[in-house]
């Protein structure tokens, strides 16, 4: 376990913890911010251990499905969930754009309040992952190229040419 690549992001929000927790755990709010500039649909949201959050992000060329299985819900301090990529029937499946992206990421989110602001620390580790999945996650985590269909190889070439100038 010690060798698994871990992704960690810390972010401070200018709001008390109760409000930040609400934004993360009320689907009415969650769908409004979750997803990078895309329409997000929440098909199911059960905030309890082994409860499901079924999430669809509508991209231009089709939807991206995620199945979240909550494991720990400690209001308003901590959430732990299994973050799974899914097919349109909500079966855990490889991401079509990135086949080696880990199917399951053990995700934990910790909310800490400091003088009316809230720090959120999100961390993800591949769970039950193949070697290829771990390698893909490690690459992506460090901001290096890899995965993303055939696009990366060509993009890498373009960048190499730009750098060579």
């Amino acid at each position, binding site marked *: 376990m010690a060798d698994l690549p871990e992704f960690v992001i810390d*972010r401070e929000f200018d709001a008390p913890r109760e409000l930040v927790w609400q934004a993360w755990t009320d689907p009415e709010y969650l769908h*409004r911010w979750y997803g990078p500039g895309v329409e997000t649909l929440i098909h199911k949201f059960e905030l309890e251990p082994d409860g499901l959050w079924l999430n669809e992000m509508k991209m231009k060329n089709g939807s991206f499905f995620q199945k979240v299985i909550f494991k720990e819900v400690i209001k308003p301090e901590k959430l732990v969930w299994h973050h799974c990529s899914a097919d349109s029937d909500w079966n855990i499946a490889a991401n079509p754009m990135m086949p080696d992206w880990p199917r399951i990421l053990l995700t934990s989110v910790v909310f800490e309040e400091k003088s009316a602001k809230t720090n959120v620390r999100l961390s993800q580790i591949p769970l039950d992952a193949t070697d290829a999945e771990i390698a893909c996650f490690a690459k992506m985590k460090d901001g290096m190229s890899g995965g993303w269909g055939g696009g990366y190889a060509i993009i890498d070439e373009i960048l190499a040419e*730009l750098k060579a100038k």
Partner: protein
Amino acid sequence: MEQTGYTNPQPNLDAVFHALADGTRRAILSRLAKGEASVNEIAEPFDISQPAVSRHLKVLERAGLIERDIDEQRRPARLKAERMIAAVNWLADFRPMWGTSFSQLDDLLVQMKQNNK
């Protein structure tokens, strides 16, 4: 939140994804990485018409990955290297997936705080 003078450093990711999802457009970007080129010059090695190339260029332009001269008849296209690198960094590191979402959460929290008053 202070918004004056704020410029979004993130490219429109939807547009960037859409632009990069096509092999011909990626090939056009490869060509432009070697230097600026007119529509004719770009169309030459491809088995597609000039209007088709123009359409691809429009998509790339909208995504902010290239720019074109307005006042010249050739309207040569040129890679906007900084934008390209920013977009690729986004793709290469999913941290900004959370980053973009978190910026949206900032805005939502401002609204929620106002509603609570």
